[in-house]
């Protein structure tokens, strides 16, 4: 039976991320990072599980997760992503986007780079005082894309001081999340239930495609995205075709915040897709995705 280890950390954690492995590595992942929010002080903390030579008879990890180090963060951490093996990017409620560098030899974190004017409300007053929360961040080395609650999309490159591309008023409501479909395309989700795809190679500030939630269904095709809604309903979308979700599944009691792209190369046929989806989401076998 699998063991579950519980550790109480005295902070509200909203996101955890596994550290990516070096390409071609066969190890299992050992390190993850957490971030906290809704407290007087917020922290970004990498943790390590097991290892240190402790393996029990089954070859599994023994013992607790260990906090490697932590660093104070300015504002609530809204989102967190591993940029590469050593760097972590965070999106803050103050509008800052920060890159932290993890030094494994002395187990410390330091600020490697920070964009302080990534997200702010234009208008009277300096930008630092009217920062808009940065809702989500996604990385694809060397690019970093952030979206803000005030409808702005930024494209950054690590080690570049200014944003490479900024789209203002990309959305009239608020962005909730962003994900890469395939470079250079990204997909954003907003608070009124619309998915928009954006292509950075194209000029202009318009999305290439807008999908929104209505009632009809469309047959399943190639590129599939799953998004979660406030009422716990999971929607499956086909980004290439149609403007409506393919299927709706009741998955959770509460809100789900992030879209996930289910890459086509993982499955071959509709049946395989169905089973894979269920394993991924932990749903019961009874649900089906129907194609009319």
């Amino acid at each position, binding site marked *: 039976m699998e063991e579950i280890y519980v550790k109480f950390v005295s902070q509200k954690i909203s996101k955890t991320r596994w550290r990516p492995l070096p390409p071609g590595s066969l190890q299992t992942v050992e390190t993850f990072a957490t971030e906290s929010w*809704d407290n*007087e002080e917020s922290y970004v903390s990498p943790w390590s599980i097991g290892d240190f030579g402790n393996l029990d008879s089954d070859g599994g990890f023994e013992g607790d997760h260990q906090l490697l180090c932590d660093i104070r963060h300015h504002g609530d951490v809204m989102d967190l992503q591993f940029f590469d093996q050593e760097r972590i990017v965070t999106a803050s*409620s103050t509008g800052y986007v920060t890159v932290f560098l993890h030094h494994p030899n002395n187990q410390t974190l330091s600020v490697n780079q920070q964009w302080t004017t990534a997200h702010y*409300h234009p*208008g009277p007053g300096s930008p630092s005082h009217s920062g808009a929360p940065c809702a989500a961040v996604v990385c694809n080395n060397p690019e970093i894309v952030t979206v803000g609650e005030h*409808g702005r999309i930024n494209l950054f490159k690590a080690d570049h001081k200014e944003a490479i591309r900024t789209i203002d008023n990309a959305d009239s409501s608020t962005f909730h999340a962003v994900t890469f479909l395939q470079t250079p395309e990204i997909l954003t989700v907003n608070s009124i239930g619309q998915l*928009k795809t954006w292509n950075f190679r194209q000029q202009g500030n318009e999305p290439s495609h807008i999908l929104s939630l209505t009632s009809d269904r469309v047959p399943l095709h190639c590129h599939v995205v799953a998004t979660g809604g406030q009422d716990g309903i999971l929607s499956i979308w086909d980004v290439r075709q149609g403007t409506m979700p393919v299927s709706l599944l009741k998955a959770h009691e509460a*809100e789900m915040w992030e879209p996930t792209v289910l890459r086509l190369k993982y499955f071959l046929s509709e049946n395989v897709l169905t089973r894979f989806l269920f394993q991924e989401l932990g749903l019961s076998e009874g649900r089906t995705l129907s194609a009319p």
Partner: protein
Amino acid sequence: MEELDGEPAVTVIPGVNSKKNQMCFDWGPGEMLVCETSFSKKEKSEMVPSCPFIYIIRKDVDVYSQILRKLFNESHGIFLGLQRIDEELTGKSRKSQLVRVSKNYRSVIRACMEEMHQVAIAAKDPASGRQFSSQVSILSAMELIWNLCEILFIEVAPAGHLLLHLLDWVRLHVCEVDSLSADVLGSENPSNHDSFWNLGLGGMTSHGWSLPYTFATNPHLESLLKIMLGDEAALLEQKELLSNWYHFLVTRLLYSNPTVKPIDLHYYAQSSLDLFLGGESSPEPLDNILLAAFEFDIHQVIKECSIALSNWWFVAHLTDLLDHCKLLQSHNLYFGSNMREFLLLEYASGLFAHPSLWQLGVDYFDYCPKLGRVSLELHIERIPLNTEQKALKVLRICEQRQMTEQVRSICKILAMKAVRNNRLGSALSWSIRAKDAAFATLVSDRFLRDYCERGCFSDLDLIDNLGPAMMLSDRLTFLGKYREFHRMYGEKRFADAASLLLSLMTSGIAPRSFWMTLLTDALPLLEQKQVIFSAEQTYELMQCLEDLTSRRPVRGESDIQQLQDEDIETTKVEMLRLALARNLARAIIREGSLEGS
């Protein structure tokens, strides 16, 4: 108003000179603001430099402790489980469930104690080490009191069993004996060890008959035997080995009256306390609390605990549990609610003062039938919302409880924030969520004004996808439909666009002020090569135009700009009249002719 039981504690605020200047203060939900005023206490009004700071004073600092946070979180889960215990359960099964809940609470206290003890040992500076240690002793006292209450009030052990429980109780809290016995039993010749006899005496209560002892003549042995026969004086002689009066009490009961009945306990308790203290010292708050428990005076226990402890956690949870045991009479307090509810409300309010723990407070309010809901309504509106994610969490809590007023209020706050940041689309979606027709009208007006100024719409992704939400307010419906008209025009669906435009005016959803714009929009449709508006429709348009022009204000003294505006108006009207007339002519002819000709 009841009299105070004791003098209130004085807190000195560094930097504020209360002897020289008057202070002013204001209460907040969990804190107090204090500062010095410039009013001098003395008669002469000299300008004395006063302290330039405003201080925030908090009574409840426990809420900010990292380790105690675990206590609050875990006990929250136990509290919820207790509320959901089936009310139908009676008798033994109910009692065993309640005892289990009590033990759960106690194990959480012990876990925190352990953790804090570790931190105290590892503390680098002695001051914080001392602070942690004192926190540990407070937690230990809490667990001691709770344990006793569990035995006397919840377990309600009858005579005989009662003493066994009390023995366990003392054993759990007298650690010295355990460390001593490890010492002694580990040595080579236990009976010659100095502490052996002390252990025998002190350890009577915990190890009973398990220690091996030789039957040599020995003054110590005589003492032992005397004690076993119930000689209290002999027991008192060994006072140093007994850590406190309740250890003495239980030991005494073990040998003089092992089948003591619960109602007789308080005689023994009072006399044990008096004998043990021997008039040298006065009882401490903990002693009074324990005495009150032995006297089965629950209200006194709770009252004393409330005074002694800095945080409502203990009394709130204990009272709630005792209330579930149906032990509290519902005597109403001055403010309308009963004691259980009063304490839970105080505790939950304290949680709301914390930036993170407010979520726990919500559940406590849910289980306060009289004033819980109204308290929650007041508190939840005051949670600072700096991100939309947090706002959505709060809104969900409100919506789950059908707190529509609060939903509307929170959405309005967010909508106003959005308007101030010029995010009209966001403002509109918040007012739709709040079902706030008035605000939706306001925002729609702003949109329409922007359109008139700039000639194009903003936030099309929202307006084009309003769906049924469009019906919220007339102005919003107009905005949506007007945009639809533009879309149809762009898609060259002229006939549909034309009827829509007309219906906007005839149905009355278009505000009068906008009619001129609508009629001007009709111009290109009238000027098209093919006839779009039918004769009937043209008559209606003409009607609208007449309606509009007949209500023009009387010309008075006007300046050049106004005259110019009116000239433009007149020109527009004339152009419209001409276009309408021409269209009418073409329409009549087309409708009068046969098809194909």
